[in-house]
């Protein structure tokens, strides 16, 4: 499997087969999650209707961390084994992860104002999420900063791997420091502390975000494979002209 997808044409064939399934799954899951979250789940006894922001805020924050973990792993695989697909996965994941981070920050701010009385506070969770956004942007900028794409890929991969240290900091920031942000209530020792009527739509939205990520990832990888083909053709043409 690992070596099988090293061939871009094989990967393209596989992507073309699974992409429609993933697209339909995303549409179905989002329809279910949004219906349950907006119209068929109870209000929180303390937070009232603002709890509905959770159905977009929490999955986007999960995905921001998931994408960065995937990005770091892909970068490590690309650096160690020179796997061509791993490099493409990393490059395609970065803008998606950055978008999820922006979404988590903005929706968090919109939830924070009515509940905390402020749009923003420099507490450990929020600050480490902003750092995550800068890591994504730094990776994208460094990847495109060199004329030689290999050099760009190598430098940005090192940044992504080093930046992975921020992921556990984000996860445990609410336990290690006193934060305004509430502690974990879904992924925690002893099981989730949320009632199933609220947890169910949240998990469905989490799945929908995951399949959406896979959908966009496939589209962006396809584009990168085509760009690589264009570059190879241009080089071949330039060499042909020289001869």
């Amino acid at each position: 499997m690992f070596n099988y997808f090293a061939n871009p044409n094989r990967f393209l064939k596989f992507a073309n087969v699974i992409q429609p399934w993933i697209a339909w799954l995303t549409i179905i899951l989002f329809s279910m999650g949004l219906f349950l979250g907006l119209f068929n789940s109870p209000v929180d006894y303390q937070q009232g209707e603002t709890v509905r922001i959770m159905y977009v805020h929490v999955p986007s924050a999960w995905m921001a961390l998931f994408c960065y973990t995937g990005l770091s792993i892909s970068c490590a695989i690309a650096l160690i084994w020179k796997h061509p697909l791993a490099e493409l996965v990393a490059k395609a994941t970065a803008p998606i992860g950055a978008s999820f981070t922006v979404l988590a920050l903005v929706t968090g701010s919109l939830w924070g104002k009515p509940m905390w009385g402020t749009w923003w506070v420099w507490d450990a969770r929020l600050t480490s999420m902003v750092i995550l956004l800068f890591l994504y942007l730094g990776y994208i900028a460094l990847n495109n900063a060199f004329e030689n794409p290999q050099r760009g890929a190598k430098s940005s991969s090192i940044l992504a791997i080093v930046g992975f240290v921020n992921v556990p900091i984000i996860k445990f920031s609410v336990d290690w420091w006193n934060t305004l942000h509430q502690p974990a209530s879904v992924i925690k020792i002893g099981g989730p502390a949320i009632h199933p009527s609220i947890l169910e739509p949240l998990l469905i939205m989490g799945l929908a975000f995951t399949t959406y990520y896979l959908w966009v990832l496939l589209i962006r990888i396809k584009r990168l494979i085509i760009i690589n083909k264009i570059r190879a053709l241009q080089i071949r043409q330039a060499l042909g002209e020289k001869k």
Partner: protein
Amino acid sequence: MLQSLKLLFDMGEYGYFVWPAYGVFLIVLFGLMIESLHSLKKAKKDLATLTINKKEQSDDWVSGS
């Protein structure tokens, strides 16, 4: 009907925060999808143009023009 719509938009006086959150969610997810599809389409078009140019060049070479 109008009353229930008003209740939905009000979201228990938190409508000003809940609906913008869902608005941003739609903008980010649709925006990212449209940008990804658009750039894939552009890349496919660039590849097709390059392939046609290459074919024309080789045809010119074969016909000797």
